[in-house]
């Protein structure tokens, strides 16, 4: 890695880019409020399509490594996103996966339960609100009245950023919290870089910073999994102890238990700790271990109360899990 200490007079250049994402990560940058002024004061934003009018050719014109850091949010599901990831990798000394989608594949990654064909069929033909009598599907190249139109290619499989290009650091969260972002920027600007590949958040599970930690009984079992809309949730007791499927024990801390403080169970957006390869698998084994029965039928009944196990346990991490995607049946 190149020397990152910038000369005092020249502010280091950074870029922000979004791939398959909802825009929440962009909001998170804006949400820094006054702190954004510190960031803007310390760096020169050279590329940020959401906010500033620089184009791709501006980036292409840069020298390799001209950017100190690129913050890329969103998963990779189109050819254009992959190209931009490669381009920014080339131009940046540090590439940072920003937010759960870039980090783990995120919510768009749940598309890995299907493939391009079934997604197109659903979106462009079968969904109730679609009117498409000619059955038009997106084409990478098409011609209309002599005009040529190109669209990015759409992959079968959604990938996290590091499944496309090497990533230096990860900022977890859906989206990353202001505190996490500011700390990360400060760390990067300080020049004292943490070991490559690190997730820039504490490497412990959320229970560590959960205000309800002390209320979890040592022997916790449940014979019912409830969903938040089904119960009046007590505001002080451990959510798992109330039968709510909280991903806290399996999820990296750093958000200061935002959702739990808002009386909602953790949904796992910070991903697993560095020691866990498969977030959903670990969460499942923790959840399964509190089921209060030894009877197969009863266990099945209790676990059937989790209506969407993959969407619950792998909500943010399917592409980066050991599963990665649903098996494509041989054609």
């Amino acid at each position, binding site marked *: 890695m190149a020397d990152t200490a910038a000369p005092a007079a020249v502010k280091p250049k950074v870029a922000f880019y979004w791939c398959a994402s909802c825009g929440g990560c962009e909001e998170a940058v804006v949400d820094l409020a006054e702190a954004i002024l510190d960031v803007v004061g310390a760096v020169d934003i050279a590329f940020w399509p959401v906010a500033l009018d620089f184009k791709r050719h501006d980036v292409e014109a840069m020298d390799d490594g001209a950017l100190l850091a690129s913050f890329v949010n969103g998963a990779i599901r189109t050819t254009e996103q992959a190209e931009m990831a490669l381009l920014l990798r080339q131009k940046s000394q540090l590439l940072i996966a920003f937010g759960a989608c870039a980090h783990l594949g995120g919510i768009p990654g749940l598309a890995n339960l299907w493939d391009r064909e079934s997604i197109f069929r659903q979106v462009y033909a079968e969904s109730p609100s679609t009117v498409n009598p000619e059955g038009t599907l997106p084409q990478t190249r098409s011609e209309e009245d002599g005009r040529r139109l190109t669209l990015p290619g759409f992959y079968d499989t959604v990938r996290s950023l590091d499944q496309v290009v090497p990533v230096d650091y990860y900022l977890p969260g859906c989206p990353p919290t202001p505190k996490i972002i500011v700390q990360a920027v400060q760390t990067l600007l300080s020049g004292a870089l943490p070991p490559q590949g690190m997730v820039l958040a504490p490497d*412990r*599970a959320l229970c560590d910073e959960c205000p309800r930690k002390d209320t979890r009984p*040592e022997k916790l079992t449940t014979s019912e999994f409830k969903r938040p809309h089904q119960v009046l949730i007590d505001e002080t007791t451990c959510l798992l102890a109330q039968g709510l499927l909280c991903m806290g*024990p399996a999820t990296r801390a750093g958000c200061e238990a935002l959702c739990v403080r808002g009386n909602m169970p953790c949904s796992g957006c910070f991903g697993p700790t560095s020691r*866990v390869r498969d977030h959903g698998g*670990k*969460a499942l084994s923790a959840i399964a271990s509190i089921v209060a029965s030894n009877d197969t039928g009863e266990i099945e009944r209790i676990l059937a109360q989790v209506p969407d196990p993959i969407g619950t346990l792998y909500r943010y991490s399917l592409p980066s899990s050991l599963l990665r995607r649903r098996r494509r049946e041989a054609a």
Partner: protein
Amino acid sequence: MPQISGSPNGRPRVGVYICHCGTNIAGIVDVRALSEHAATLPGVVVARDYKYMCSDPGQELIIRDIAEHDLHRVVVASCSPLLHEQTFRNAAAKGGLNPFQVQMVNIREHDSWVHADRQAATAKAKDLIRAAVRRVALHRPLERRRVPINPDALVVGGGIAGIHAALTLANAGKHVYLVEREPTIGGHMAQFDKTFPTLDCAACILTPKMTQVRAHPNITLWTYSEVAQVGGYVGNYEVTVRRKPRYIVEDLCVGCRECIEACVYKEGKTRDEFNLGLSKRKPIYMPFPQAVPQLVVIDPETCIEFKSGKCKKTCVEVCGDRKAIDFTQQERVETIHVGTIVLATGFKVFDAQRIPYYGYRTYPQVYTALEVERLVNAAGPTSGEVVLRDGRRPESVAIVHCVGSRDENTNRWCSRVCCMYSLKLAHLIKEKTDAEVYNFYIDIRTPGKGFEEFYNRVQEEGTHFIRGKVADIYPAGDDRGRLIVQAEDTLLGKVRKIPVDMVVLAVGLEPRPDTQDVRRLFNITCSTEGWFLERHPKLAPVNTFTDGVFLAGACQGPKDIPDSVAQAGAAAAEALALIDAGSVELEPYTAFVVEEDCSGCKTCIPLCPYNAIAFVAETKKAAINEVLCKGCGVCVAACPSGSITQNFFEDEAIFEEIKGVLAHA
């Protein structure tokens, strides 16, 4: 990957050894192809195949290579690690490696023995070796731990097995706590009249051992007591014993039994458990005259003082200055510390009422064998007279074998003792009554020392043997009140109906009804039938899967007296070996919580089958007691944040192993 200076790429230098195991492996697997393949694997600096790796020259090969090739890791592809892991660990240690930097690959039980296709078996062996080579690179050096052994021992159960184990340990100078549930020790043997095949009087050989127990300076005898809780681990068990109140001050009672005489009940009204209800006892009683300890007991269920508080208390009166009776006595709970535990909790006899067509408790002429033991016993309810409940002496007696044994509807196992005790009872009944005795048997099994000779003797005495399983027992309807015993004689091929005055059911042996509770208490396992499970049926017959807990007598399976005594001696010897070693080495495959990583979510705590994990209030994190941990890995798998690591089974190593298996050449 650990970086090792002076080796290629900083990788550990691995030696791979492939065993032919004669033709066991080499007959199916192409061992030469294996060593050639292994030599190409990353990190492997030497790969050999050899006829018998476990032989001295085989081990020498490893030791020499460690020095000559500067090996850091060793992979041996041979048999099951159960057999020779220790052998190769020791060889590596002799060569100067940490013994845990050895990995075994089982290409015999897992490969050559279960496959017939040479090519496929060779390919499978290659996969397994590749996995081990990748895994072994990540092995960390581990140390076995030593923990001291408390020399005191606990024996649970005061039957002949428990008595013998306690005496053996005590004679070796160890302090023994002998805990017995009943008011006296002696167990089933105390109820027997004679013992087969020598016809020794059971009491004559048992009671001296019972009094030895009482008098032994190294034995603390707690009767009428039960183990309530067991904590700790091998060498360091903490045991809580509940001592039921007998309402008698043990130090003051001299066993004179005057109180029994003086009881306001002139006659006993309560079923006498020791005589199986063939006689009655009073609320204050001694189970039998030679009971040890020589102490009476008050049964609060039937004692008038307990019932109404208005008894004249003639017992207290006669006890006088001895002041040994104390109606206010309470249950006491004692906590003791022992290093080893011998379980000798015995058996229960089959409840003959479970086979309704044998008429037990329907026809008064039907007895169980244990009841007849009491009848023929001179100290029994009939002073040794074999008489029916109506006082008549039987002129014909049927002994029905295999009641609750070798029977698909009740218990499938052979109870091992019934043939012999039936022969013994046949002899005793014949001797005492001169009755015609008919043995209805499926097979006569007399495999012990002197057993077959005894069988011949009983045959010569004129006892009848009918080979057939009894199908029905019903009244003959004659004026003698006889019963018809009906069976198909499989030797004659016809149905026999024999009228008899008395039927003896040779009931089998069963696990005690509270076996599962006891099993949990001592953290051991049971066979499907409910007998306590030994660690190995042949090579570790008195050990359990819990270190420091041993088995003696019929709690492990049906056994006669000599076998129980032999096993009790073996259990005591195993305990002594542990005690005299002074300390015990524990395998290092334990799990540990990385405190810095733990979030304190408590997921692991209730999952540990050994109660080895505690939540530490100060740190708000989990901690594993290394000595309690058996390395089962449950917590490691369950820890949602991956903060528990298990020695030798670290995630990285396992993933490397998986990759190795999947990386087909």
